[in-house]
C-alpha cells in the first residue's frame, strides 16, 4: 500500500490540512485523527488542501461525512481545495459538490472564511 501523510498548518483561526498520497480504508483512521485533533482543540475553520492527494476512496470520503455536521453546528466548516481532476471525479460521482464547498485554490477558501 502506498503511504498517506497529513500535515497541518494553522493560519490565525483557520487550520489547513495538506493531505498527500492514498486516502483509503487503510489510511482513513489517520486522517480522522488529524481532524479529530482540530475538533478537540475547537479549531472548526478547516481547509483540506488535496493538491498532493493521488487517490481517495469512499472510506476517505466517509471521514468528511463523519465530521461535517458537528463542525458546522459549531460555526465552522470543512472546505476543500486544490483537488486534481481524478480526485474531483470521485467527489463528484458520489454527490459531494452539493454538500461541500470546493475551491480551485486554497486562498479562495481562506478569503471565504475571512469574509464570512
Amino acid at each position, binding site marked *: 500500500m502506498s503511504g498517506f501523510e497529513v500535515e497541518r498548518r494553522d493560519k490565525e483561526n483557520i487550520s489547513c490540512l495538506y493531505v498527500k498520497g492514498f486516502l483509503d480504508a487503510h489510511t482513513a483512521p489517520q486522517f480522522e485523527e488529524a481532524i479529530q485533533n482540530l475538533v478537540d482543540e475547537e479549531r472548526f475553520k478547516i481547509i483540506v488542501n488535496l493538491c498532493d492527494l493521488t487517490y481517495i476512496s469512499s472510506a476517505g*470520503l*466517509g471521514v468528511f461525512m463523519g465530521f461535517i455536521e458537528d463542525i458546522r453546528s459549531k460555526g465552522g466548516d470543512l472546505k476543500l481545495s486544490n483537488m486534481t481532476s481524478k480526485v474531483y471525479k470521485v467527489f463528484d460521482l458520489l454527490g459531494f459538490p*452539493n*454538500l461541500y464547498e470546493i475551491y480551485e485554490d486554497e486562498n479562495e477558501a481562506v478569503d471565504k472564511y475571512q469574509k464570512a
Partner: protein
Amino acid sequence: MTDIDKKVKLKEIDERLMELSSLFEISKLLSSTLNLQSVLNNILLTPMGRMMINKGLVLLDKGSNYYSIEALKGLPHEFFGKTFQIEDIPNHPVFLPLFLNEVENNTKPYIDFLKQQNLKLIIPINSSNKILGALVFGGKLSGLDYSEKEIDYLLSLSNISATAISNSVMFQEIDSVNRKLDQTNQGLNTLFEIGTELNSTLDAAKILKLLGFALMGQMLINKYAIYLKSEDRFELKDSKGLRDLPDCPQDVPDIYSLFKELRIPYEVDAETDDEIRECFIENNINLLVPMMIQDETKGVICLGDRINKSPYSEFDREFLNTLANQAMISLENARLFKETVEKQKMEEELAVATEIQNNLLPKRFPEFDNLELEAVNIPSKYVGGDYYDFIKLDNDILVTVIADVSGKGVPASLLMANLQASIRALAGEIEDSAVLTAKVNDIIYDNTASDKFITFFYSRFDKSTGELEYCNAGHNHPVVINRDGSLKYLDEGGLILGMLPDLTYKKGLVKLNPGDTVIMYTDGVTEALNHEEEEFEETRLMEVIEKEYKSPASIIESSIITAVYDFADGYPQSDDLTLVILKLLDDE
C-alpha cells in the same frame, strides 16, 4: 411597381432575410453544442425575443406517451421536470383555443395545465420519423395572434432544432449511462478495497469503524447504527449521529422479528407498522440492511437520511447488501478468533492453576507409629479449590487440615497458597486450634476480596494423650467412627474464613482410641452428581463408612471413592473431590 409597392416588397425581403439569418445563426449554434439545456434555452429565447413572446416551454418525449418539461422561460421554475401523459401529441402547429374544440376530453391534466398557464401555441418537434416533443408558447406582448408567417418560422426553427435535440438527448443518455458506469465502478472499487482491508484485521472495533467510513462516504450519510446479534439478542454495537436508540430492539417484539427476518434492505416508509415506524422515523432512520452469513441475519445496519435526500438506487442496495455481508463475515471471523484465543488462555490458566495446586498438596505423608494416614484429591476438569495438609510438629503431634477455597483457576490457587503458608507458619506457634483459626481468618480476610472465602477444618492430634483438638470453620463436618460403630461429628468452630474480621472461634475436643477412624471430606464427595443430577449426599457416604469402618484406612478410602464413581456413572463433576482419613491402630 410603385415606389410604395417597392418599399413594401423590400421590407418583406428584409424581414425574410432577418428570419433566415436568425434561423441560420441558431442552427449554427445548435450544431456547435451537445448540451441539451443550452440547446433548449436557445430554442425558446430566440423566438421569444424576436416575436416578443412572454413565456414558453419545451416538452420532450420520455417514452410510453409521457412528456416532461425540460426547459421553460417566463414560468415558475418549480414546473421544471413536470411530467404529463399525452396520448395525442399534435404533429402540426396548433393554436390552443382552437385545439380545445378538437380534443374530445378537455379535462386532461396537460390541457388544464396549459390553459392555467395561459399558453397559446403548440409547435411539434418532428424528427424524421417520430415526434420528439413540442415547443409551447404563450401569447405575444402585442396581444396580436400569431400570423401564418410566424408559425411557419417557428415550425422551421423547430425542424432545424429537432436533430440537435435528438443528438443532445442521445448524448445526455450516453453521458448518464457513463456516469452510472463510473458510479458502479467506483462502488465496486470501494467493495474491493474495503474487502481487502476487512480481511486483514481481526479487531471487531476496527471492522466496525471501517464499515462506518464506507457507509458514510459511499452513501453520503452521517447517521447510522449497527446492531449485532449475540445468541438471541440484537445489541447496539456502534452508532453515529443518532441518539436515544434502543440498546436491545428485542424489547419491541415487532422490531425483533423484523430484524430477525430481514433478508434484503428494507425501507421504512408510510406502510411500515406503526410501532416500528415510530422507533425508526424518530431517529431519522429510513433504511435497514441485513448483515447475513449463509441464511442467517446476524446483524442489521440502520441508515439515516441521505444528506442529498436522493433515494437509494438499486445499485446502492446491492452495494449495501454486499458490504454488510462482507463486514459480517469479518466480524464473525474476529469473534471466532477471539473465542479461540480466550479458550486457549483459559486452558493455559487452568494448567497453571493445576500445577500450583498440585505443588501445595503434601507429596509425602508424615509417619507415626500405629497411625494410618490416607488422603486423596481428585481435581475436576475446571479445577476447584480443595486443599489438605498433614504437618508433623514433633513425634506425637499431627496437624491435619482440610479446606475448600471458593472460586477456581489461578485466583483460587493463589488464595490456597496463602492459606497453606499461614497454617505452616502458625501451626508451630499457636497451640490452641480456635486461636489459630481466628488468626488465619484475619489473614485471609485482609488478603482477599469479600466474595472469596474458605471452608476450613483444622485439627491437632496428640498421640501421647489420644486427644484430637479441632476447630471447624464452616466445613462439612468430619466423622469419627469408634471401633464399636458409634459416630461423632466434629462441628464445633465458627464462621467460614474470610467473611468477617476479628471473629472468635470455639474449639472441640474428642478422645481417640485404638480402632477409631476420623474421616474428613469436601463437598465434592457429598455433592457429586449422577445423570439425574441427584447428589451423592451424606446418607450414602455414611452407608459406606458404616459398612467399611473396620477395614484399613486405604480400603475405606477406596470404598468411598468407588461408591461415588459408581453413583456418578461417568457424569462430569464440577467440583474437586477430597478425602482425608486418620485411623488409630491397636497398639501391638
